């Protein structure tokens, strides 16, 4: 039943992505199929987590009827998705098969390195999960605790909001909702479920990173990015520790990738999916709300500059199709259940302003950030950029600027929170900075490899060369 509980949301997600896109070219080659799978995984998990919460809220404790309803949704989406494939085949001329170029030997070395490292990381993850099946502090004290209330609490699940407020009751419920939903499938609350969910998010982030870069910049670039991500020990450790920062990092990466793919392929439905993913980031952790703001500013700036105000509003409308339903649930949750957050300006404006002008606080924060950046392997990335001739792909400039704006705004936001924190600064940085940076690390690595020269042409460039036009018959 656990396998079914994990497979159903992936099916729902993939079929949803495909159905929204009306089959238009998503399955045209292997890289796109893989990309669709990793986009669909997180989308499905997010959608089912929302459905579980809404069911709990309005229909009471979910049981067998919930499972049947979810399976029905999956079947309907598969049916619709299959229909769109048939329809798309009938309305298009099939693109000529492009002869595949011989793969350079060194690319095979990179590919072998990626798969070897994936096996190594999986074993490390497995052992770490066996050592801490309940996860690290945040996992058992927040996410799994909440999941237990949602699943075991029955009609009294709202008692969750009576426990001590130190346990961040204002945090949204994507992870607890999804874990409780899987427990509903299993009919019990085994600790293996949160560990499996953590594995799905950790390795889906690697998969999404690889597949998106494979589509945009070629497979070797995707493999390299995956290698760097798996080589970040904090990513593996915190992934296995069941921290929500890894799922948040996944959704931050997903929404950015979808906007960039939209820019490259002009697939309108990707914008709606990007809006949905951005909303799911905010449904994962409070920091996701900061991401929403950063995402909105980055989209406004880049679209206005490259395409003008009219296109901006047209795109904003499409983004909102995906974003608004999730945002409505988040607002409802915050309004009805969540106590006010205690992190931002907890002491008021006056003392916070005083801290802003203390040079020592700036020095401490910068020192911590540099140490973490180095521990993530940042120096090696600078070294590799130097060896690549310090060049950047000019064709990717708007995508790179879009990502950099998001990263900069989020870093500025976190910097400000640390600067004005009411907690002892060293303690606050020491206990949270690594995880906070981990939220942004997948997007940083993605942007880095998007910007750097690649070994081989990207799938999109190849398909453009065949003259294939995408984006016809879109839903949005």
């Amino acid at each position, binding site marked *: 039943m656990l396998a079914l509980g994990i497979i159903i949301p992936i099916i729902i997600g993939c079929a949803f992505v495909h159905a929204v896109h009306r089959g238009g070219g998503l399955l045209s080659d292997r890289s796109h199929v893989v990309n669709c799978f990793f986009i669909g995984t997180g989308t499905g998990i997010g959608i089912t987590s929302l459905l579980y919460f809404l069911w709990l809220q309005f229909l009471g404790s979910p049981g067998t009827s919930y499972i049947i309803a979810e399976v029905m949704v999956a079947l309907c989406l598969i049916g619709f998705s299959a229909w769109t494939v048939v329809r798309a085949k009938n309305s298009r001329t099939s693109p000529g098969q492009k002869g595949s170029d011989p793969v350079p030997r060194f690319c095979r070395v990179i590919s072998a390195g990626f798969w070897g490292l994936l096996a190594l990381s999986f074993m490390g993850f497995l052992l770490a999960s066996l050592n801490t099946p*309940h996860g690290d502090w945040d996992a058992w*004290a927040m996410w799994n605790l909440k999941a237990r209330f949602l699943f075991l609490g029955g009609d009294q699940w709202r008692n969750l909001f009576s426990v001590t407020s130190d*346990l961040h009751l204002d945090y949204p419920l994507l992870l607890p909702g999804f874990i409780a939903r899987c427990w509903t499938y299993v009919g019990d609350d085994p600790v293996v479920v949160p560990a499996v969910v953590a594995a799905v998010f950790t390795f889906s982030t690697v998969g999404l990173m690889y597949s998106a870069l494979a589509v945009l910049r070629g497979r070797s670039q995707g493999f390299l990015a995956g290698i760097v991500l798996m080589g970040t020990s904090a990513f593996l450790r915190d992934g296995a520790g069941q921290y929500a920062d890894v799922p948040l990092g996944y959704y931050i990466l997903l929404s950015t990738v979808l906007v960039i793919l939209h820019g490259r392929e002009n697939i309108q439905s990707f914008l709606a999916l990007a809006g949905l993913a951005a909303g799911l980031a905010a449904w994962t952790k409070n920091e996701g709300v900061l991401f929403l703001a950063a995402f909105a500013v980055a989209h406004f700036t880049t679209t206005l500059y490259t395409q003008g105000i009219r296109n901006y509003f047209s795109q904003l409308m499409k983004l909102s199709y995906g974003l608004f339903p999730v945002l409505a649930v988040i607002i409802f949750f915050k309004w009805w259940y969540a106590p006010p957050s205690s992190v931002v300006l907890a002491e008021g404006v006056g003392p916070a302003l005083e801290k802003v002008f203390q040079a020592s606080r700036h020095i401490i924060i910068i020192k911590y950030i540099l140490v973490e950046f180095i521990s993530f392997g940042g120096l090696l990335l600078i070294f590799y950029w130097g060896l690549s001739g310090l060049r950047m792909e000019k064709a990717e400039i708007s995508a790179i600027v879009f990502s950099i704006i998001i990263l900069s705004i989020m870093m500025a936001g976190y910097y400000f929170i640390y600067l004005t924190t009411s907690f002892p600064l060293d303690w606050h940085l020491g206990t949270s900075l690594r995880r906070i940076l981990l939220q942004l690390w997948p997007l940083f690595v993605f942007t880095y490899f998007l910007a750097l020269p690649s070994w081989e042409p990207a799938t999109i460039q190849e398909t453009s060369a065949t003259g294939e036009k995408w984006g016809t018959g879109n839903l949005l």
Partner: protein
Amino acid sequence: MKTSPYVRWGMKFGIASLLVYAVISCGGVLSEQYKVYTQFTRHSGDPISEYEKRFTGVRQILPQKGAVGFLSDVPAPFLKGDDGRAGTLYLTQYVLSPVVVYDNAQYPLVVGNFHSSPHPSPELLKILRLRPIANFGNGVVLFKREGME
């Protein structure tokens, strides 16, 4: 984009460095976790599961839902520093959920979680008006508060 052979060789070297770094880093996690597994987990399980086992008895007696008070002496052995006291409460909350655990003894039922002996003195129990109704012999005691239903 055309790249000079020097840059391509440089990139090859850089990629090899990235790969070596990633293998060392990933291998480090694997060996560290393997050590923990062979030295501790394989023999005694993980600390939280062990902690949870202590509460198996009290979970069977407590109502499925509702609220209880909480009384404790020292932090759980594997929780260090300032987080110890709070961590003990959070852990107890985690293992007893969906029953809500409040950090005071003003409830009809109070769960005691003690790691040192002797367990709370009869004088303290008298002041708090608590009467032990079940002692599970592992530091976990269920109290009833006198005069409260």
